[in-house]
């Protein structure tokens, strides 16, 4: 595993996705991001890991620069609802990112699971999917597999 290694600017041929993994502006946690990187790499995807405390503007810039197939935002500090809603609006405001896969997952609120209404709100704000910690990794895995199949096709 090489963390923080950017992929080469030319996309290598292959079936994997180019994935950008990132924390949110106020979230200092990184084990979730290290795990996501290994998980995605094992499945044949290429990962650029921005690490923790990524300001909104930096995330937008990195997405524009690298044009990933998928942006995975991990959040576990309890501000995921606020940070996520704000940053996805900034990402979707760029026409280049209108069709990019953008998902968020982790422990999103400070009171534990809050039910579907908050997840719906994040979807309405622009996320393709919202993965809550208590559902485990399986829904994320099937989402990534479906997306990879679609991009291949």
């Amino acid at each position, binding site marked *: 595993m090489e*963390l923080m290694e950017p992929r080469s600017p030319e996309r290598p041929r292959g079936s994997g996705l180019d994935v950008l993994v990132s924390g949110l*502006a*106020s979230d200092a946690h990184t084990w979730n991001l290290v*795990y996501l990187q290994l*998980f995605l790499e094992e499945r044949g995807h290429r990962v650029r890991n921005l690490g923790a405390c990524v300001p909104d503007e930096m995330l937008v810039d990195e997405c524009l620069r690298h044009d990933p197939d998928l942006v995975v935002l991990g959040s576990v500090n309890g501000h995921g609802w606020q940070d996520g809603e704000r940053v996805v609006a900034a990402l979707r405001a760029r026409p280049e990112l209108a069709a990019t896969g953008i998902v968020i997952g982790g422990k999103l609120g*400070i009171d534990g699971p809050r039910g579907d209404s908050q997840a719906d709100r994040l979807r309405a704000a622009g996320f393709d999917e919202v993965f809550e910690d208590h559902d485990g990794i399986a829904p994320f895995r099937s989402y990534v597999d479906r997306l990879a199949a679609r991009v291949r096709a």
Partner: protein
Amino acid sequence: MTGFGGFVAAAARAGELVVQPRMGFGDPARMRAGLAATRDAGVRAVGTITLDSFTRVGEHDSVRAAFADGKQLNGYPIVDHPLAVTRSVLDGVLGPDFPVQVRHGSPRPQRIVAALIAAGLDATEGGPISYCLPYSRVPVEESVRAWTESTRMLAELRSLGRRPHLETFGGCMMAQLCPPALLVAISLLEAVFFRRLGVDSVSLSYAQQTHPGQDAEALRALRALAARFLPDTDWHVVVYTFMGSFPRTPGGAMALLADAARLSVRGGAERLIVKTVAEAHRIPTVEENVDALRVAAAAAAAQRSAPAPAAVEDTGVAAQATAIVEAVLDLHADLGAGLARAVTTGLLDVPYCLHPDNAGQTRATVDGSGRLQWTRTGALPLRGLAETGGELTTAGQLLQALSYLERKFDDAALERECVLT
């Protein structure tokens, strides 16, 4: 001696472990109630104001937006609440018999330190390495500058007859998968950094890891290094209850907390920061924090009256930590400059840390005995002092290592339940 350090020293003389929650609420009334409940918990406790993560990263607009929308924060926003509000939180609670420490996590803490000083407080924690590498993407040089300023602001309080106190966070770093020698070394180096900048009452942290024997060895190494490198200093050691993936069962969570309390007593630590039954799930309530303080104090008291534990094994933690400390202190007459250079040259290189300045050439794992071991040492000055091998390579293996204690304590708790029913 007075202040935070004096309170802990008096407790140590009385043979009692000081216990402390990690507690912070955005709402002032709830924050005050939490401090009062800590003071009245019936144990030798100090209070904590943990700040929210917007304040930690300096996103004050987000704090004010949360105020305006009535959204909950994950800690107390000490910079944005008016001074009168923070004073009203502390008034009649803070006192010589109940010191309060501010915990935050900021690599640029100047505004936080100014706010806590203005509110009449003088104890906080962190450090130029430990609040930069794991928690931010701020360049280490900038964090060193910010912590230099902040430490000097606190040191100035001595001219007013106060005794400011700083605790290193270096004994925690990423909370998991960092071999104890590097935690001990960073904790010690940050304490020396504080001392050289004029704060002469410090505490050195060490976070409970995966193996009680290895942790006891680490605490012994930390105390030996503190005795050697911190002359003319009031210092004590603070243990953090495990900071990684916490057991999900109440029984497992409290058993791990009790283990941390016993480790503190065995290892001669003077203070313990607790975790609660809720840790794996959400931010704990005041009541859960108070319960945890009592469980920890009881476990510590029981350990004091237990027969003397077996001798601590020497597996090389002290030799490794000493080698790292000596190499970093030799880099530069100015320790701040030395710390920044140590990071960029890989003399301090934290496994799995994604910070842009971290060399990222070291790795570690939990070995078959449950101890943390290096699998790659990069440019750490550990030639001949550390064995390596058996690297983690898959997400599943990483998760296994990260959840080692969680599973161990949850499995044991579930087994106990099965036996009882």
